[in-house]
Each structure stands twice: as structure tokens, then as C-alpha cells.
């Protein structure tokens, strides 16, 4: 049986070679990761000092100075993007996972947001440019919409906090038991919330829309929120669908409305997962550059005013890295170091939480 033995041997050798090649591929992947991280570390460490965070940039070509303006701008843009993007994404996710569970509408939204997650981020930038930056000197419908939206969201958060405050603290102290009193209190809370929203709209309208001239921080935040919404939506949907249906049935059996079931049972059961998803989406958005290029643009001076062009870390890295000065390159590397390791840390921690909570 010499023929068969050599045949088996040949196949074994073939298998060995193929599998070694796949191991080599894995090493190649790890090599790229190590190479990039090591390089960022090597170049970034040398430029890292306290001045980077506390000082504004020196005039071009003169050594010294820092990137305080970019750090603050980045924080501001990402903060407002979170404020806009997370509530919308979460509410939409709740709707398609709960009220519209299993319907065609839910499936369509789910698939479309999966596609939106991967849509080129620079196209998002051009879209936001067209609606929030370009309309100078004419009625700024995009701006009005943005302000209306912002005040609605703020009022929503305000109402939620007020509700929490009243139900958790005030009622415990005063001890109201009459049902109609609670109803009146609820009405008062709702009215205050609505009034707050309207007041905010009227207050912000002339402040924001009139003064926005061209590039502005709001546009940047909106562009990032655009990218955030589908990410948050999909995580919320996934996390809600992990909550066993029997848990909801138990609450329904007690006579709870669907709203109460969602608020007190479903969301509570999936809070860790949703929050982790939110954190992951923030870290995803924090590294985006392309959508900021023509929305919040860039600013070489320190500003906290979102109505002006505002610097962000990523755009600053782009400008500094392609600029001619050696000093700029060092600072760009240092900023890259900060942003990369921040994002990697957040991603790893968030993944560990998901792993520990849902698989372990």
C-alpha cells in the first residue's frame, strides 16, 4: 500500500502548509496592529506634555503652545452630538423593538440603519453642509429645525429629570396619597416641560440662528449625531430583543401599560447593554474627521461658542500633519496618541462589560 501512504502524506503536508499560511495571516494582522500602535506610541510620547492640554497654539512656526482649543472643541462637539443622537437613537430603537416588533416597518428601519452605519461619513458632511452651513443670508430652515429639535430634546430631558425628582424625592417627603392629586401633579409636570421647551425655542432662536454665519459647531455636532443615531438604534434594538418576552408578560399580567413595562422592566433589564452601546458609539464618533471638515471646520483660536467655526482634535490633526512645520507634526502625533488610546481603552472596557454581562 505504498501508493496510499504517500497519498495520505501528501494531503497531510498540503493541510499543514495551508494552515500554516492562515496562521501567518493572523500574525500579519497582529503585526499591522502592533506596528501602528507602536508607531503612534513612539511618536506620540515625545510630544506629550502638560502644555498640550492647557495652552492654546502658538503662532505657526514658533515652538511651544498646545492644543487646548482642539480638546475643548472636540469635547463640546461630541457632547452635543451625544445629547442629540442618543435620545433619538434610543427612542427609535425602543419603537422598532417594542411597539413595532416583527412588523415590516421595523425590519425596514433596522436594515436601513444597518446600511446607514456604513454610509461614507464624508457624504454626511456634505449633507449637513447643505442644510446647516450653506444657507447664509436666507431663511435658515435647517437652523430653525435644528433649534426646534434641540429644544424638544432638552425639554424631554428636563421633563424626565423633573419627573424623577418629584416622584423620588418630593413625594417621599410630602406623602401625597390621593390619586387625583398625583394626576394634577403629573399634569403640572407635563405643562412645565412643554413650557420649558417653548421658552427654550424662543430664547435660543434669535441667539443661534441669526448669528450662525457659515461653518459652525452645531453643524459638526449634528453631523456626528447623524452617524450616531443608527449605531445607538441597532444596539438598543439588539439589547431589547435579548430581554425575555416572559418578563414583559409578567408585568402585563399585573396590569401595567406597555409604557410602564418598557420604562420599568425592559429598559432596566437591558440598561447595561444600552449604556455600553452608547459608550461604543461615542468612541466611534470621537475619531471621525471627514464629517467635521466642512461643518464645524477649524479654528486656530480658543472658543467655546458653538455658533462659530470650532476646532476639533481630529481636524486639527489633519491640518497639522499635512502642514509644513516639524513642531506641528509632533503635536499632531501627540494628539493622535491621546485619541487612539482613549478610543481603544473605551472600546476594550465596553466590550469586556458586554462579554461579562451577556456571555459569561
Amino acid at each position, binding site marked *: 500500500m505504498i501508493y496510499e501512504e504517500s497519498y495520505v502524506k501528501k494531503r497531510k503536508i*498540503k*493541510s499543514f502548509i*495551508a*494552515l500554516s499560511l*492562515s*496562521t501567518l*495571516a*493572523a500574525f*500579519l*494582522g*497582529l503585526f499591522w*496592529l502592533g*506596528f*501602528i500602535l507602536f*508607531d*503612534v506610541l513612539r511618536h506620540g510620547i515625545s510630544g506629550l506634555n502638560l502644555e498640550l492640554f492647557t495652552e492654546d497654539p502658538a503662532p505657526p512656526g514658533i515652538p511651544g503652545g498646545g492644543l487646548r482649543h482642539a480638546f475643548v472643541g472636540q469635547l463640546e462637539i461630541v457632547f452635543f452630538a451625544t445629547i442629540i443622537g442618543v435620545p*433619538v437613537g434610543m427612542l*427609535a*430603537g425602543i419603537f422598532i423593538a*417594542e411597539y413595532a416588533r416583527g412588523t415590516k416597518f421595523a425590519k*425596514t*428601519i433596522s*436594515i436601513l440603519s*444597518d446600511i*446607514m452605519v*456604513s*454610509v*461614507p461619513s*464624508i*457624504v*454626511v458632511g*456634505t*449633507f449637513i*453642509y*447643505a*442644510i446647516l452651513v450653506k444657507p447664509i443670508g436666507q431663511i435658515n430652515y435647517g437652523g430653525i429645525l435644528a433649534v426646534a429639535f434641540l429644544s424638544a430634546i432638552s425639554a424631554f430631558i428636563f421633563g424626565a429629570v423633573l419627573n424623577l425628582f418629584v416622584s423620588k424625592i418630593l413625594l417621599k417627603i410630602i406623602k401625597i396619597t390621593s390619586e387625583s392629586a398625583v394626576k394634577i401633579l403629573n399634569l403640572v409636570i407635563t405643562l412645565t416641560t412643554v413650557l420649558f421647551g417653548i421658552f427654550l425655542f424662543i430664547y435660543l432662536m434669535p441667539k443661534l440662528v441669526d448669528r450662525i454665519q457659515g461653518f459652525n459647531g452645531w453643524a459638526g455636532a449634528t453631523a456626528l449625531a447623524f452617524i450616531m*443615531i443608527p449605531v445607538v438604534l441597532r444596539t438598543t434594538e439588539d439589547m431589547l430583543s435579548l430581554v425575555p418576552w416572559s418578563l414583559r408578560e409578567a408585568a402585563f399580567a399585573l396590569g401595567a*401599560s*406597555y*409604557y*410602564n413595562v*418598557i420604562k420599568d422592566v425592559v429598559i432596566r433589564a437591558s440598561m447595561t447593554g444600552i449604556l455600553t452601546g452608547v459608550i461604543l458609539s461615542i468612541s*466611534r464618533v*470621537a*475619531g*471621525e*474627521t*471627514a464629517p467635521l*471638515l*466642512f461643518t464645524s471646520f477649524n479654528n486656530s483660536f480658543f472658543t467655546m461658542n458653538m455658533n462659530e467655526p470650532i476646532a476639533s482634535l*481630529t481636524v486639527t490633526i*489633519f491640518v497639522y*500633519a499635512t502642514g509644513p512645520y516639524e513642531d506641528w507634526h509632533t503635536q499632531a*502625533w501627540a494628539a*493622535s496618541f491621546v485619541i*487612539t488610546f482613549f*478610543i*481603544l481603552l473605551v*472600546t476594550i472596557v465596553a*466590550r469586556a462589560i458586554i462579554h461579562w454581562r451577556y456571555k459569561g
Partner: protein
Amino acid sequence: MKKIRRLPLSDIFFGIISFSASFLVLTLIFSTIFVLYDESSLAIHRFGIINFILTEDWNPVKEIFGAAAPLYGTLVTTVLSLLFAIPVALGIAIFLSEVSPHLLKTPVGIAIEMLAAIPSIIYGMWGLFTLAPIMADYIEPALQNTLGQIPIIGKLFEGTPQGIDLFTASVVLSIMIIPFIASIARDSLNLTPNLMKESAYALGATKWDVVKDVMIPYAKLGIYGGIVLALGRALGETMAVAFVLGNRHEISASLFDAAATITVTLANEFTEADSDVYLSSLFYLALILFVMSFIILAVAKFFLLRAERGYSR
């Protein structure tokens, strides 16, 4: 007896709010298409569709714009990066699902996914300051001396190696898309039923035979989905490419020449567009990119959904 209300007010209120939030997603997509079309209508009327795609000129002074060069650049970088990435990514997927010892699976898997978490601007910086010099000094001359000597293929490797060219951009892109293909392919390979693998082993198959003849055919749809998804990602990548491609609106056969992609053109010229036609042409490019990537991502989603359905059967 108290009357039971069918739908409490809070339910209606919350339902309406959350519905409008999910409807907003739909609105965003359609308004993106509408706004981009509206903004680019000037260029569409002036240059037409076929004419715009086939014209190589990009002349802001004479106000003649054509998308041929950026489209060509996008196409070449995308195809090349897929060519580089697919074998490596599949190798990684096979390693993670079959070869790797159990202890290494999670750490290596997370490390590969970390590649996807690194912001694209870091890839760009790294490509410009680290990879481009290496390419210009070692790899590109080496390629010219070997592959460049072959008569017809040699055309691809002509010119002085600068490091800022299509080839480097494709390499950077390929590193970026490896994790997308690898993680989806690994998940699909892992779904192969053990019964099928064990039957193959019982017939005397080697590990490679099992991978090649049982697992890959089984996971085929998922792998296609991952590849198409990566294609969509590579198409729309901006910052990583912007650093290492230059911005040159000319089509040349050599891979060692600077070029432009749609995204790079947008990133470099959008804020500098001084005439209406110029800006409108840039919006036109964005529209083309959006439609292209939307279709490709929809195809990817179609494959992945089909794959999911197949596995659960």
C-alpha cells in the same frame, strides 16, 4: 368597578414620540438623497450623467468638471485593497475558527477587531509618515525590479516611487478593511454544525480538507456578505486615503502615481469651491458616492440576511 382604559395616555404619547424618532431615520436617508440631488442639479444639467462620468477634465478655472479621474481612483484603490485584504482576512478567519488554541482565540479576535476601532485619521498619519517612506525606499523599487520587468504588467509599476500613490493608499485601505471581512467570515465559519465537520473527519479528511470542502462552502454567503460590506467601507473611506494619495485629477496606468478618489476630492476641495458650478459638481460627486455605496451596502445586507436565514434552517 373601575373601567379599564385600553390605551393609557402615556402609551399613546410615548408611542408617538418613539415612532417619530424611528421615522426620522427614514427621513434622514431620503432627505440626504433629495438634498444632494437638489444641490447637484446645476452640475447635472450642465454636464449630464454619462458625460460627467466619462470626462477626465477637472478644471475649476474653465469650469469644466468630470468625474472620470476620481471614479477611476476610487475603483482602483477599492479593488486593489480587496485583493490584498481578502486572502489575509480569510486566513485570519480560518486561524481563529480552526487552527488557534482555545486560549488564544479571544485575545487574537479582539486584537483584530481593534484594527477596526482605530480612527481612520490615525491610519492616514501612519501611512503618510511611516508607510509612505518605507514604500518609496524599499518596496516599490523592489516591485519595479521584479514585476516591473515583465512587458505588459510592467506598465503598472512605471515612474519614480514617491510613496504617495495609489499603491500605498490601497495597502492602508486593505489594513483597514481586514477586520470587517475577518470577523464576519469567522462568525460564519463558526456556525458550521459540528456534525458536518465530524462526518468529514470520519471519512479521513485532513483539517484543510474540512475547512476547504465543508466549512467554506457552508459559510459562503456570510463570507460574500463580509467582502461586499468591506467593499462599501473601502469605497467611502476618506481620511486614511486623503493623506497618502495626493489629489491629482489625471488617469495614469501606473500604480506609482498620485491620483484622486471621490472622497479625497471632496475633502480637499469642498471648502475651496469658489463658484456655484464647482460646488455643485462636488455635490454631484457626493451623490454618486452615496448612491454607489448605498447599493453596495444593500447587496451586502442582502447576502448577510440570506446567510442568517440559511444557518437558522
